[in-house]
């Protein structure tokens, strides 16, 4: 192989691989007709090209089944996200008192927390013991909840409206002011119905929830949240005007505030509650919880509260249009 041939190697590689431009093919072909060494080189590369093609074709045989496995994993993840969203909503925003026995345990803990708090000699204008009592005694609660992300814009059009009574709850979730999901909880029958309003879905799923979730809901609904703040280590934030209302606030970073269980260990907590000095009811609650070393981040703002309202039981009757498909497991 002479220098000319050495220069031809690139073109031979391109020819065999199929990337040589038409302009060069004819000239190279003439050289190959004359040069046995280059013909051997081209033949060897051609043979390798066939081996490569076959080699990757064999690997490609199972691409469809691999892709199917990924699609199944994606579906599982979507269901899990949906369930997680459910749990997140529950954990952060909602639920009602259902079990007196559990209530007794919690109230005991709360009382201890309150004594602890009162014992610190609060200088707040808000009487927190009274706040805890009032929110617990509240018949029905309506509030808005929104997820917030520090690195994204605050979008007022994405939110969830929450309606809680002593036996039911209902969540209406909106995106760009269009309702896309409704969740009905019935704590008597321990059932949850999730209605997906997206035009491409139009479906609903009915599930039962276990004691663990129920207990988690009970512990974390806004009515019991005041008590949670008080039973955790916390500090006073002083006065601040929130939504035009003069409030007093407290803040906690106590990991005990989150009760996610051993499967989702709490990494950090930052929670604040602002209570109206005038009415003694919460006006805004901000919660940011990080779990699993940062893999799970829950960040919500609860506001637009209406406390102690009478909610018509009919609003908790699932309203499912007849063309929606039942996809219950």
């Amino acid at each position: 192989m002479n220098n000319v041939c050495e220069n031809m190697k690139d073109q031979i590689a391109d020819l065999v691989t199929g990337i040589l431009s038409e302009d060069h093919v004819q000239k190279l072909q003439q050289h190959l007709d004359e040069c046995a060494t280059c013909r051997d080189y081209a033949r060897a590369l051609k043979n390798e090209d066939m081996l490569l093609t076959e080699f990757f074709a064999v690997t490609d045989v199972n691409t469809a089944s691999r892709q199917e496995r990924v699609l199944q994993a994606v579906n599982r993840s979507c269901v899990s996200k949906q369930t997680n969203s459910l749990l997140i909503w529950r954990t952060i925003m909602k639920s009602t008192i259902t079990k007196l026995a559990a209530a007794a345990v919690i109230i005991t803990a709360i009382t201890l927390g309150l004594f602890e708090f009162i014992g610190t000699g609060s200088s707040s204008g808000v009487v927190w013991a009274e706040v805890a009592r009032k929110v617990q005694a509240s018949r029905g609660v309506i509030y808005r909840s929104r997820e917030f992300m520090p690195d994204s814009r605050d979008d007022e059009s994405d939110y969830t409206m929450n309606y809680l009574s002593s036996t039911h709850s209902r969540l209406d979730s909106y995106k760009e002011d269009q309702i896309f999901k409704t969740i009905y909880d019935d704590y008597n029958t321990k059932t949850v119905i999730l209605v997906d309003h997206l035009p491409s879905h139009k479906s609903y799923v009915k599930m039962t929830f276990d004691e663990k979730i129920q207990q988690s809901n009970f512990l974390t609904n806004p009515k019991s949240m005041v008590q949670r703040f008080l039973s955790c280590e916390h500090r006073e934030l002083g006065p601040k005007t929130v939504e035009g209302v003069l409030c007093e606030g407290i803040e906690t970073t106590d990991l005990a505030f989150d009760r996610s269980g051993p499967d989702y260990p709490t990494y950090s907590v930052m929670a604040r509650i602002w209570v109206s000095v005038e009415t003694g009811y919460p006006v805004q609650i901000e919660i940011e919880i990080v779990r699993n070393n940062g893999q799970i981040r829950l960040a919500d703002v609860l506001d637009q509260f209406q406390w102690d309202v009478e909610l018509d039981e009919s609003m908790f009757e699932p309203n499912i249009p007849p063309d929606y498909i039942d996809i219950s497991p």
Partner: protein
Amino acid sequence: MNAHLDESLVCACQRDDKTAYAELVKRHYRHVFAMCLGMLGNVDDAEDVAQEAMLKGLLKIKKLDKAEQFESWILQIARNLSIDFLRRRKRTKVFGVEQPKQPSQRTGENHDLQQAIRRLPQELRVPLTMYYFDRKNAKTIALKLNISHSGACQKIRAARKQLHELLTERTKHE
């Protein structure tokens, strides 16, 4: 056209349309797998990392600002995860292509080829793998790797020449 379709699908995903992401998987999984295979040189590892990449894409898709750039974004995720995987991998694995179920007379040749491909530097192995896995389309490879067409051709050419040298060297030693 493809980018427009991707853009629509990404926007649908960002509105919580779960079926849209499945469509994105169908459109891009093959390339993601090829990228991982080129990076890792092992079919099983590539399958795991490609799946991880597609799931990570699902988790992060709401943060994707330029919806039309989904393909380069998901390939970048696959590349980064492959790099992480290589960092974590403590032992060298053999380039393990799935063998045909029927015994092949070319098994020995395939084994040599696997070894030679594994010895190629990563910057040549990735384009070569993607080229042969993607029905020999250099333009597509250039787009996916975000390099020029001539740059892609250059890498494929260099890979082929180096592969030939590796295979010839092996034959000579035998």
